[in-house]
């Protein structure tokens, strides 16, 4: 039995390596002085300063950040409300609403991208505005936020809010001081996920972006289609570093960890 466990652990180590090796290799090569990235020719930091003088790149980063920010705000508000309502309410058409919520998650992104392109083009006679991109991004983020918030709200005792009301809190007060703090970890986790989804999205964006609304993923794609460049390695390294810091902070702050625990507990409960 121990022997089998050892095999399983060795296998697990290999899979974890498989998951991280490509990213680590990418980071290492961002410090390689060779122009063509293959073969190690010595350590350099040259590829980093170059990035900051690239106007197209700076523009793309700025568009991406603004887009992600608006998307996070929009999808977190709508998704949180939806998740809460689904967790707390019994109403006719609840099953249909849940299906409506799941559909965007099981629809290939390319379908969402092209149908929104048709929609925007027919409605506005044009495509590619920042506003259209925002609408598109919020659309594919709502479901994820709602499902995370819902999982947390389902595991929350509904009597807590009623108790607050009995003690004289207004409906708004009970929500603000009881419900919201209790679901806050899930709201933060949902917002973080929405940010990651929006920041990373290439497929929906490529269908709906235009002149002046080119995002970072579009910029990167345009470069890597024509091969490997050390600048892209450097950009990737920065993105990975920023992502790692954000995840670490989220983990330290505890909301992420707490939510992960609650989420796992909630999923362990038998179906009702």
């Amino acid at each position, binding site marked *: 039995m121990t022997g089998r466990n050892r095999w399983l652990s060795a*296998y697990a180590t290999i899979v974890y390596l498989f*998951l991280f090796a490509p990213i680590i290799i*990418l980071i290492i090569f961002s410090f390689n002085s060779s122009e063509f990235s293959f073969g190690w020719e010595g350590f350099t930091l040259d590829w980093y300063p170059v990035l900051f003088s690239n106007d197209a790149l700076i523009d793309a980063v700025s568009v991406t950040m603004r887009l992600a920010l608006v998307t996070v705000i929009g999808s977190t508000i709508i998704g949180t409300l939806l998740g*809460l309502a689904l967790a707390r309410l019994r109403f006719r058409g609840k099953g249909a609403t849940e299906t409506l919520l799941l559909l965007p998650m099981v629809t290939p992104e390319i379908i969402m991208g*092209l149908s929104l392109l048709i929609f925007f083009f027919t409605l506005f006679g044009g495509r590619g505005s920042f506003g259209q991109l925002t609408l598109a991004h919020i*659309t594919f983020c709502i479901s994820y936020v709602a499902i995370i918030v819902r999982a947390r709200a389902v595991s929350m005792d509904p009597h807590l809010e009623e108790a607050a009301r009995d003690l004289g809190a207004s409906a708004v007060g009970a929500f603000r001081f009881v419900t919201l703090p209790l679901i806050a970890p899930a709201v933060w986790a949902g917002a973080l996920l929405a940010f990651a989804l929006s920041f990373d999205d290439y497929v929906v964006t490529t269908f709906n972006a235009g002149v002046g609304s080119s995002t970072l993923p579009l910029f990167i794609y345009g470069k890597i289609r024509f091969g490997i460049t050390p600048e892209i390695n450097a950009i990737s390294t920065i993105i990975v570093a920023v992502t790692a810091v954000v995840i670490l902070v989220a983990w330290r702050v505890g909301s992420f960890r707490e939510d992960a625990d609650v989420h796992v507990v909630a999923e362990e409960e038998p*179906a009702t």
Partner: protein
Amino acid sequence: MTVRPTQPPSIVRRTLSGIALLPGIVWLAMFFIVPLAMMFVVSLGSRGPADSLILDRPSLDNYARALDPVFLPTFWNSIRYSVATTLLCLVIGYPIAYWISRHGGRNKTLLLIIVMLPFWTSYLIRTYAWMTILSDYGVVNSILEALGLTSEPIILLNTDFSVVLGMTYGFLPFAILPLYVSIDRLDPALVPAARDLYASGRAAFLHVTLPLTMPGIIAASILTFIPALGDFVTPDLLGGPESTTIAKIIQELFLQGRDWPYGAALGFLVMVVTLGGTLLALGPLRREVAGT
């Protein structure tokens, strides 16, 4: 001040909750359902002069064109890439999910989050990483050559192998998560119980563990098959000219060829396949994703 009855929920609260529900439903209906319906309408139309759309004479011509035997290799590519990716993700992911659940101890959540970490890193960047590893002068070929095993590069990039590898790498976390949830939910005493009743290790796995974790397996299959079927990034970056998939054709029709009605018809077919498969397994999926 009125005395509030403890039950039932007040009308105020119900109204508030109704208001909470509306924005999400309206948003998804407006920006998800309506565009899908419009995609279907456009798929029945045809292309007019100067890329205009002719929609007043609906026909199924685009669907007839889509089923032309010329496209068989493309459909075949899409299907075999998605199926191979799904199977690989299940085979690689199941033991990992099992290991985290049974041997993770107090670190279960941490181990799970580490598995999910690459998912938080840009999909494009992860795909690009494989380009640097697999290219003719990339990491693998450099190592093989340095070791004296090969004298000239083995072609790894722009092959079926690299496409399936890239997709498997990209979607593996999606498979591990639902597999973990369903394995972790399984009572650990069941397998020893089966062994006590003289089942072999193999029989216990096949007749106890596997059937009971089937919801997780189905959810994992859906969550990898769908993105793999709609993926044009991986075939474009890691595949060669032979690796064209249906998703890549759709992307080209929309962004280069500008034959929207035909692209919409192909898109609708992809959606029918996806939704058909999903609806068949929606029950288990809803349990896994929604956690209820």
